[in-house]
């Protein structure tokens, strides 16, 4: 297969779709630009977004280009284990809101870095900002590259002009609209995505003579027997139990620390509204995930039936190839609009996340006396700068930045989640533990990965490449170090630690909604030691060679 097989033949169709969707996004951005008067409006949409719109926006931020392209290809390559990898991603927002979303909301934090700054001070905040910028940059470059490839298919342009054009157009509308514009655009994009995935999929399943075509998310069981005849191992587990445990350690714990998702919660109009986002989010994301598995299943079935082995590049385009094979070309153009929406909405969330970390959290700490107007101006510069820097890096990205986003989730699980979650639930975690745990475990994760010192890499193949093998060591180390160093610091630096603990008692009780401080809530070291002990067997298992 060659690019000609998935290229739109009618260039006017591609141009019309591009102008129509971006025309809509710019209109929404311009309307919301007038409503942005301060930094809270720019970064958090003035904390005014209702649950329905916010749930669509959060879902849209979570759906990336991969939802339409990469996932289907990976289902073809990895079969059932990849479905298990993908299923748990839905837990990100529920666990985030459950474990720390409401607390950050009460603190009026702008991001997780802002929380770290309030909880542990500026040095730990700078460390957290460094990790988060690295994670978000890795995430964003993948999205920019994906969008550029979509522009190639839509407009028939070479890769580099596609990248520059798409990056400038996207940066423009996000900078104009800020978080308000991005939120309403994200919500619109989520609706486009759902229609673009599910409706054409129903037509594909109908063309395949599947009786359950009218409900694509669960209606494709009629293909199972034929698929099993061609690929008998499709539904096999293929990996040992440790692989499935690593999905929790690396991915579930990693995604619940992602700043762009936390920021979505913080745009809510109230804490109760933020909680109502969760079921709606699960509805939209669940529907999209079910649709994605169905599309992957149909893709595997189609190419197994015609006996064609796909190259990696062609496998990435399975959704487009299926639509071009079974639906008219205008339907494929609409599906591409869905892919664009998926990529653009993720980039929007990431760009605003990066801009908030840089413009609010870092500049705000370095220059706390900035006026409201100057904060806003820095915010716009940070947004535009984020887009331009990402474009420049994406033109010729360093190899370590284009590793899988799953690897970046492992880094988040290691270096960010422990200090945030433990800091919300325990007054005994202090700056020494948080800083040491994050720095040492983050460095360990990078050092043991196959991308830095290949000779020291833990595991081989996919478990090493995606960071699963490393996470089983570095995440336990992160939690254990954060706890042990915090408790040890209480003994070693008695006076300073006592002051720190007193402040943490006030902060932690308040962020949980208590109006008066008792200094007894969240103050036990017992459960911290139990948690550290529970991580030990996982660490031991992680140390066993794969």
């Amino acid at each position, binding site marked *: 297969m060659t690019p000609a097989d998935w290229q739109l033949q009618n260039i006017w169709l591609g141009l019309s779709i591009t102008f129509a969707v971006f025309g809509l996004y710019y209109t929404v951005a311009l309307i919301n630009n007038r409503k942005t008067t301060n930094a809270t409006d720019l970064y958090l949409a003035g904390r005014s977004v209702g649950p329905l719109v916010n749930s669509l926006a959060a879902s849209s931020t979570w759906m990336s280009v991969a939802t339409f392209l990469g996932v289907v290809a990976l289902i073809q390559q990895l079969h*059932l*284990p990849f*479905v*298990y990898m993908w*299923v*748990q991603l*839905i*837990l990100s927002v*529920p*666990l985030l809101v*459950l*474990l720390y979303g409401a607390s950050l*909301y*009460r*603190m*009026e934090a702008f991001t997780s870095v802002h929380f770290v700054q*309030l909880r542990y001070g500026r040095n730990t905040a700078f460390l957290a900002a460094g990790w988060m910028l690295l994670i978000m940059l890795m995430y964003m470059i993948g999205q920019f590259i994906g969008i550029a490839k979509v522009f190639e298919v839509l407009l028939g342009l070479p890769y580099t002009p596609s990248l520059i054009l798409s990056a400038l157009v996207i940066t423009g509308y996000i900078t104009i609209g800020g978080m308000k514009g991005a939120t309403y655009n994200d919500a619109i994009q989520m609706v486009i995505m759902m229609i673009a995935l599910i409706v054409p999929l129903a037509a594909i399943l109908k063309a395949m003579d599947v009786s*359950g075509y009218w409900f694509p*998310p*669960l209606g*494709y*069981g*009629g293909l*199972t027997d034929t698929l*099993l005849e061609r690929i008998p191992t499709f*539904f096999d*587990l293929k990996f*040992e*139990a440790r*692989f*499935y445990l690593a*999905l*929790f350690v690396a991915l579930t714990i990693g995604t619940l620390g992602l700043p762009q998702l936390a920021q979505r919660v913080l745009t809510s109009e*109230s*804490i*109760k509204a933020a*909680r109502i986002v*969760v*079921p709606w*989010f*699960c509805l939209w*994301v*669940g*529907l999209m*995930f*079910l649709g994605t*598995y169905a599309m992957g299943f149909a893709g595997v079935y189609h190419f197994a039936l015609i006996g064609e082995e796909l190259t990696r590049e062609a496998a990435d385009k399975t959704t487009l190839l299926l639509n071009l094979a079974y639906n008219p070309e205008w339907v494929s153009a609409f599906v591409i609009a869905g892919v664009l929406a998926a990529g653009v909405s993720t980039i929007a969330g990431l760009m605003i996340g990066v801009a908030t970390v840089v413009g609010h959290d870092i500049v705000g700490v370095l220059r706390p006396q900035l006026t409201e107007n100057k904060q806003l101006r820095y915010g716009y510069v940070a947004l535009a700068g984020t887009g331009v820097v990402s474009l420049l890096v994406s033109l010729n990205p360093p190899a370590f930045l284009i590793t899988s986003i799953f690897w970046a989730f492992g880094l988040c699980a290691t270096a960010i989640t422990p200090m945030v979650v433990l800091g919300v639930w325990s007054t005994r975690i202090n700056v020494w533990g948080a800083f040491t745990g994050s720095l040492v475990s983050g460095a360990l994760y990078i050092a043991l990965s196959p991308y830095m010192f290949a000779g020291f890499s833990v595991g081989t193949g996919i478990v090493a490449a995606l960071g699963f093998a490393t996470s089983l060591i570095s995440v336990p180390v992160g939690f254990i170090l954060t706890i042990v160093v915090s408790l040890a610091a209480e003994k070693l630096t008695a006076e300073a630690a006592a002051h720190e603990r007193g*402040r943490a008692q*006030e*902060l932690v009780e*308040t962020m*949980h*909604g*208590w*109006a*008066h*401080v*008792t*200094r007894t*809530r969240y103050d036990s070291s017992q459960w911290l030691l139990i948690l550290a002990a529970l991580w030990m067997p996982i660490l031991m298992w992680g140390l066993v060679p794969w």
Partner: protein
Amino acid sequence: MTAYIKEVRSTMGFGIIYVLLGHTGLWAVLLGTNNSIRVLGLPVHYFIAITLGSIGVLIWSIIWCRYANRLEDEIEAENVATRQGNTDVPISTDVRSSIGADKVTEAAK
């Protein structure tokens, strides 16, 4: 302290169930798989994984959302009761200003 204990226990309980719903791969490793047992034409372990990981998580989120919002009211009620016969330590000015604690009660509503 009742609402506090409820908060801690419910967070652990809801969290564990969420994790179990999204990680049925480990169940399949423990219980084994059989492609001949089908639901809607799909092998049962695959069907369980995708439905619990979507519809199951959705239903659990509805239950959690209702519970957590009710608990929020209980915390607020305890705050009111504490204010009436307050013997606890008030929040210090620096912490209050750094986290906008004045808006805590307002936000909870």
